[in-house]
């Protein structure tokens, strides 16, 4: 029988439709994988089940009974436990308190039952015995843990709910292989005991290893549900990206050697700092240098450090021929360096403000402006936005009224009014739609043709292979391999990324 059934669940945030039509049926004793590209609505769907997002419409059945989930507490009462992708931990509480936070054991009705708390924590910590890593204990504050350890605590917390129905929204993104193995053993055991499990991951090998069925979501709509045994990864990916799937990756391959534009735009020698060590490379004018490898191997840290927003312990950076050691982003911008982050909401978007104010800050700084005359600015801003086919109603609408892809275009347009010499792209296409990606890469290649030196880190191999002249593969904070010319293949990239991991 079905443990959980969703039909036609929808959710809109203002004008943005996060989930158009979510359908899902979860059986007892199965691991049901949810797949879809970033922003397709998977997390929204999970949060609706877990009660932390209120659906606009649709039906939810638990054990074939229609239910209304009025909040996280009500979800727990209906036997639903969840691992949140962004974690739901109290950083200044101990591991044991966090594990039981949803239902703290009490004695005499008001006091915390410490011994029960400890026992319960020991039970779930024990499941991960040997893979928790150094410094992990029941009384450590969660804020003092490493990211992978925090993720383990969130897993333990979800398990401690002992809910018949468990949701894991990207639980493995920071875990190492041993931790993932152990986690999968636990999941298999839960499966045997008849729990229903919803599982989200982007790693195809993990999905193959643990999943029974897969439901594919695209643009907020459930496309289909398949048996994983009856399908292959390529088919799943085709379903995920839809008809447009062939567009960006299969563009004519970029030349391995750039025609002589004269000299290096950016030179980095033996750079070490927090998160990376002994990184050296050179980017020529007109060249696009790719950074590849698994997520979080130091690529972002290097780019941020160059931009003056990270720490540098030793090493040397040159832009053109002159030494470049930006004390902060302001300094870096003044000296012709540009940085675009994929984490728009954290690093880029000035939320709640008009589009025009989101395009102009770099211009203000580089032209040392004091007065902001809308008429005059409009003439500078409009061409920058148009060069990427940005869609907007007016420059004075809030940036929040745009889709994610268009917001990112606005952020990039910032750098086009006064051209930089070096452009650092830190996974710039995270969570944006395919047509926006295509516009973006067309622009990047045009900028390179105009003589900018560009560094592109992307978590999507296809973007690197389709746009980079050379690719440096990062592993554990340093460059493990350089792929040039005909070596730039998906296979080599994949192999280099997983080599030592």
């Amino acid at each position: 029988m079905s443990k959980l059934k969703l039909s036609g669940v929808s959710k809109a945030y203002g004008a943005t439709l996060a989930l158009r039509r979510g359908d899902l049926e979860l059986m007892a004793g199965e691991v049901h994988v949810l797949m879809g590209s970033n922003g397709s609505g998977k997390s929204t769907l999970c949060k609706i089940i877990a009660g932390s997002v209120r659906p606009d419409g649709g039906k939810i059945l638990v054990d074939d009974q229609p239910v209304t989930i009025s909040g996280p507490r009500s979800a727990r009462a209906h036997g639903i436990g969840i691992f949140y992708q962004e974690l739901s931990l109290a950083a200044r509480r101990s591991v044991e308190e966090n594990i039981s936070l949803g239902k703290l054991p009490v004695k005499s009705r008001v006091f915390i039952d410490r011994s029960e708390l400890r026992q319960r924590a020991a039970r779930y910590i024990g499941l991960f015995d040997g893979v928790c890593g150094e410094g992990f204990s029941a009384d450590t504050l969660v804020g003092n843990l490493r990211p992978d350890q925090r993720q383990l605590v969130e897993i333990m917390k979800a398990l401690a709910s002992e809910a018949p129905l468990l949701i894991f929204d990207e639980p493995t993104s920071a875990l190492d292989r041993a931790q993932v193995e152990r986690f999968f053993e636990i999941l298999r055991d839960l499966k045997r005991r008849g729990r229903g499990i919803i599982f989200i991951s982007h790693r195809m090998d993990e999905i193959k290893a643990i999943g029974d069925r897969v439901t594919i979501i695209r643009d907020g709509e459930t496309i289909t549900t398949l048996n994983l045994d009856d399908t292959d990864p390529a088919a799943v990916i085709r379903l995920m990206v839809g008809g447009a799937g062939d567009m960006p990756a299969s563009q004519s391959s970029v030349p391995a050697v750039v025609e002589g534009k004269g000299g290096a735009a950016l030179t980095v020698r033996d750079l070490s700092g927090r998160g990376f060590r002994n990184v050296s490379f050179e980017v020529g004018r007109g060249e696009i240098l790719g950074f590849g490898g698994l997520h979080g191997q130091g690529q972002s840290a290097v780019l941020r450090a160059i931009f003056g927003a990270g720490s540098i312990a030793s090493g040397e950076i040159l832009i053109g021929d002159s030494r470049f050691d930006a004390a902060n982003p302001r300094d870096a911008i003044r000296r012709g360096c540009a940085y675009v982050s994929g984490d728009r909401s954290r690093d880029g978007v000035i939320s709640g403000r008009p589009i025009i104010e989101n395009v102009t800050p770099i211009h203000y700084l580089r032209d040392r402006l004091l007065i902001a005359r809308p008429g005059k600015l409009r003439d500078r801003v409009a061409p920058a936005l148009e060069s990427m086919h940005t869609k907007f109603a007016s420059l004075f609408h809030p940036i929040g009224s745009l889709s994610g892809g268009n917001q990112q275009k606005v952020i990039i347009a910032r750098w086009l009014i006064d051209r930089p010499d070096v452009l650092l792209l830190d996974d710039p296409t995270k969570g944006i739609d395919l047509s926006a990606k295509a516009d973006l890469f067309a622009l990047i290649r045009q900028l390179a043709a105009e003589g900018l030196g560009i560094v592109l880190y992307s978590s999507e191999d296809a973007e690197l292979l389709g746009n980079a002249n050379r690719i440096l593969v990062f592993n554990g904070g340093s460059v493990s391999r350089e792929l040039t010319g005909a070596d730039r293949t998906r296979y080599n990239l994949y192999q280099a990324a997983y080599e030592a991991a």
Partner: protein
Amino acid sequence: MAETATVPTYRRTGGIGRLLERYPFLPALVIVAALLLLNGFFSPNSLTLRALTGLLSTYMALILLAIAQTYVVYAGDIDLSAGAILSLVNVAIVVLMERWGGGAGAVFLALAIGLLLGLACGLVNGLVVAALRLQAIVATFATSIFFTGFALYVLPVAGTPAPALFWRTYGGRLFGVPFVFYILAALVILVAVMSRTRLVTQLLAVGDDQQAAYQTGLPVITTRIKGYVLCGLFSALAAFCITGDTASGDPLVGGKMTLYSVAAVVLGGSALSGGWGTVVGSLLGALTIGLINSVVFFMGTPSEWQNFVQGLAILLVLMAGVLAGRRARS
């Protein structure tokens, strides 16, 4: 795998850091000890039992008010009406005690009503801030005006005396030991018991990350309301002490004390953003304010400079409190 190598320093290992993490009020304790020494240095008499009793009976109300404030700060809220609640309970119990004749029965009945009044005020604050989602700073300022108005209604001008039974007990001795020490002992026990309750952990979890607490299934709104109710109750207790100390009713007595209670909480190393702190720290913070005032006096500071030096000293220890608290949390 790689994360270990790439991002090495997530745990702090320093002994001081560990110690601060476990006992965040240590800096406040050191400051209190230093101030006591200074007091003793400038005026040896100030360390006598008699002088310390005086200090305690004067600042016991602020100590309680600081503790009251701590429980709302735990959850990331603030209560600017705590002083007004204190005033209201002060005049209410004084008027009731007088009306009922000032006997032991009247005193206890009045105190019980005072506690209920504090509870009701806290409940109003909690409903307004947590249930109606008004901004804590402005909403509790508005309720403070309301409570002050109510206090003025109960007793329009300061001056009604408290019954002798009440203030003699507060300022007197029991079995040879000054009564305020019993209060202090009872308070320490009460606070220790409180710290083991589920509510305190929930308050701290809510203050740590409200959204996460909600997603975890904690009753966030109820928890915050309970925090304000606790604050109201402890403000009422503070009112009992101020009544014992001043032996009279004054509808404006607590007005100035609110901001001091906030300062005491910060001095104790608690984070105003919530999720981190100790009640003991606030207790020490309130004592710090009292001791600063007395050191400045005993130092022989010219009278016109005393307020300034006090203000400056408090600003400096406030900054120290914030910096030490951050060090403990980093």
